[in-house]
């Protein structure tokens, strides 16, 4: 049985997701050198980073997100594109800061697993209400597709078939499952995945509220338990990266998976340079 991480990276006019994925792959090389990672993309990788990836996989069945900015229309294809029997899907704007081999052992028990609680940089459970009003208003299961797992199986395949259906017809499903005033005007893969969990009535089988991990540190600024505002988290707290790529945010040493969320983190911090120096890429 093979296992590995898969990321979907499609650049748009403002964000180089491939660059983010390359950084993620470097972080994985540091903390989990034996874990494979594949990238699903139609963009071209920087030549020096290609060796970080196990496989570079074209987006299957044409690009469903050619006309969109957010590029999430292809997310349902990852089940089919993954070369692994057991796969962890991650957002590209994440860093793996610790050995996560024990997470694979935990996930053995599941055919499909979604993170349902995330953490602040201070290690407390993040209150994501600010960003998840539609979930609360419609009693949707609080799934975070930015970090989830599946094993190639009938159960996972059924979920992904439904996800394809919901993503391709999201306005229709939103009308059925979401109250009018709370209904978003844009498609969200988290909302779509939660609607699928409702349809299949399998939330308790694909989440574990009492498990602290697998999860991630969610750096969206309005879930950090701050009272004072700012435009982004990087203006609110310092971020420090040692030569060994140990990361501190504010006064907190970071571990687990860091979802830094702000693309200019790559420009404002020396994170790329630090990782390149450390693994000699």
């Amino acid at each position, binding site marked *: 049985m093979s296992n590995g991480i898969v990321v979907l990276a499609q650049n748009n006019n403002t964000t180089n997701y491939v660059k983010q994925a390359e950084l993620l792959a470097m972080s994985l090389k540091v903390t989990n050198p034996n874990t494979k990672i594949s990238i699903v993309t139609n963009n071209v990788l920087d030549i020096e980073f290609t060796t970080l990836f196990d496989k570079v996989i074209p987006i299957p069945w044409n690009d469903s997100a050619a006309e969109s900015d957010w590029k999430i229309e292809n997310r349902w294809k990852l089940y089919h594109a993954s070369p692994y029997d057991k796969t962890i899907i991650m957002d590209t704007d994440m860093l793996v800061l610790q050995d996560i081999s024990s997470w694979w052992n935990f996930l053995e028990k599941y055919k499909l697993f979604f993170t349902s609680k995330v953490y602040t940089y*201070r*290690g*407390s459970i993040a209150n994501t209400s600010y960003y998840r009003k539609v979930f609360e208003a419609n009693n949707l299961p609080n799934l975070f597709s930015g970090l989830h797992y599946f094993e190639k199986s009938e159960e996972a395949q059924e979920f992904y078939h439904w996800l394809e259906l919901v993503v391709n017809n999201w306005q229709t499903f939103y009308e059925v499952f979401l109250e009018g005033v709370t209904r978003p005007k844009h498609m969200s893969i988290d909302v779509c995945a939660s609607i699928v969990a409702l349809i299949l009535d399998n939330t308790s089988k694909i989440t574990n509220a009492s498990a602290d991990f697998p999860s991630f540190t969610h750096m969206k600024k309005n879930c*950090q*338990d*701050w*009272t*004072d505002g700012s435009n982004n988290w990087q203006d*609110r*707290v310092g971020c420090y990266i040692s030569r060994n790529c140990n990361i*501190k945010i*504010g*006064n*907190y*040493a970071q*571990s687990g998976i860091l979802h830094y969320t702000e693309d200019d983190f790559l420009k404002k911090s020396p994170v790329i340079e630090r990782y390149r120096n450390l693994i000699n890429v």
Partner: protein
Amino acid sequence: MNKTKGAFLIARNNAQIDYVKQAVFLAKRIRKYLDIPTTILTDSVDYLKSTYDETVFDRIIPLEYNPQKNERVYYDGAMYQKQATFNNRSRCQVYDLTPYNETLLLDTDYIISNRLLKNCFNLKDDFLIYKDSTDLAQVRDEQEFKYISDTSVPFYWATCVFFRKTQINEIYFNLLQHIEEEWDHYRRVYQITSGLFRNDFAFSIAIHIMNGFTNGTFAKEMPGKMLYTTDKDVLEFLKDDQMMFLVEKRNYLGEYNALSTKGQTVHVMNKFSLNRIIDKELANE
């Protein structure tokens, strides 16, 4: 080893507040409710001996008189305030000064009214401190007692701390002394805008460092929860284990709600009203 245990109080008077009086009052309550001896560290030994019954203390440890420039505002209810010296720079030395193997370090305005803290001595954990707290008024923003600053580390109350003499705790208190000595550096690193040294902040920072700059297990929670009233409330009545407070009313400056407690230990931050109550108590003895 003979496991000695006791409470440790620090009393450094300023021009406005008689902390020695509070310590005498609290020592009696410690004996009554916790049945342990009390040691006092004070820079007013002569005043203590000439004014109060010194026999309430197991030991009196003299401290050199060394007034600080640490000034702060003390309220006496919501409408009245005074500026006074905040002589709080001795707490970090308690590990070296305490005569006990097991020490309960208390602020003199922490009014013991039950036996709950006796449980500290029966627990296996070597360092206990309150993190969770409840404002009796229930109308104020409690964020300032959640983190030492908005983006910084959790707030711990140096008001009430239990520790045993262990190698790890010695490291902790050495670290505390270092933080105190280099306060201007640490308060900037931990995003504290005020230059005023506060023991709560130093204790909190040291715990964070002992935890490896993350959420660790160095400090365990004290039994129960820290109940407090701020100096904008007024202690109006105290008899045995009963207290009656006038607590701030939301959106009505200078107006109060009456609130009674029975059998609850409370941190009474309005030191003026506490001292008025103690005066009455001492007059009745």
